[in-house]
């Protein structure tokens, strides 16, 4: 029963060479570092309204008059207005700030959705004006709510999608990121 030491030495497993793997890593890491985006940027398309020079007046457009929806971002809240009836039979809709002094973005989204659904499915233009003292970040948040309905309930969960219109010949509402008013024009107040 004596142990043969020479036999034990021969059973040892050969160690796995990691050098080819290291070489691969050393090639891949510099390549990935050069093509990695640490900041994911996007853009929002907008336009500024410039006063046109005086000339022959514009011809009246054929068909229904497009919606001229204006949104004023004030220090007290939002004010939506138009020359046409937009919300609950009125040409204006006021959305005051919440009790904690924050803008009521959820209400703005609901009102915009109601306007869009109420016979203005083809309108996609909104004119935005701002009062003095409004921050750029607040305007960007307003643009987000004006452009689409975010399907979240503000608590990290998903809210129910906007209701579909009745199937009696109405244009179906696009599901997912439902576009509201994605043509944004800024006007000087």
């Amino acid at each position: 029963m004596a142990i043969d030491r020479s036999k034990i030495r021969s059973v040892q497993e050969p160690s796995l060479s990691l050098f080819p793997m290291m070489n691969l890593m050393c090639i891949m890491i510099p390549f990935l570092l050069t093509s990695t985006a640490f900041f994911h940027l996007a853009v929002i398309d907008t336009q500024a309204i410039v006063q046109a020079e005086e000339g022959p007046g514009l011809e009246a457009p054929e068909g229904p008059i497009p919606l001229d929806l204006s949104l004023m971002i004030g220090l007290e809240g939002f004010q939506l207005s138009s020359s046409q009836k937009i919300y609950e039979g009125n040409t204006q809709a006021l959305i005051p700030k919440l009790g904690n002094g924050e803008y009521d973005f959820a209400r703005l989204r609901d009102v915009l959705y109601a306007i869009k659904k109420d016979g203005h499915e083809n309108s996609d233009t909104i004119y935005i004006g701002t009062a003095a003292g409004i921050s750029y970040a607040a305007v960007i948040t307003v643009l987000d709510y004006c452009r689409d309905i975010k399907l979240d309930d503000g608590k990290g969960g998903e809210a129910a999608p906007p209701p579909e219109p009745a199937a009696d010949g109405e244009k179906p509402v696009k599901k997912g990121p439902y576009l509201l008013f994605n043509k944004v024009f800024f006007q000087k107040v």
Partner: protein
Amino acid sequence: MARKIRRSRSGDADLNITSLMDIFTILLVFLLQNYSVTEVKLTPPKGVSLPPSSAQIEPEVLPDITISKDSISFDNTPILTLVGGVVEERYYDQNKTIEPLLKAIREKLATQEYIQQLREKSGATAAPATPEVVDDDGETPEQPGHQILLLAHKEHSFKLIEDVMFTAAAAGISKFKFAVMKND
């Protein structure tokens, strides 16, 4: 003593690279997650913290106006310094446009038009006219010279951004692309 020396000479020292491999693997996974295949890679300039947004449109190469915490620059050329987050009154002209910025944009546009004219001239003599480029919607795409990418610090008052926009509009550019940080 002599025995000890013989043993150290005969055996090669093995470098344990397993822990290094672990680091590299984690690094590789992180880099693969952030790997970007977009043509344009933009990084916010120093002193600019872009506002977050749900926008998903990828940026493109355009002339840019950067409004950082304390300065305004156009196409990487510093134009003026902001004092307390606003443009000093002396920089405004009677039309409420920012005069140095207006001048810089007009100069840039004039240069672009000059280059365009040169291209048209050389194209007319040297090469046959290329067919008009039409995008997916069947419309002729906007000339890049008539749009501006706006990289503005999120804490600024929108009044400042508006003044910059309407200054650019006075120079003939009315389309803007607000650069924002994507919400993940």
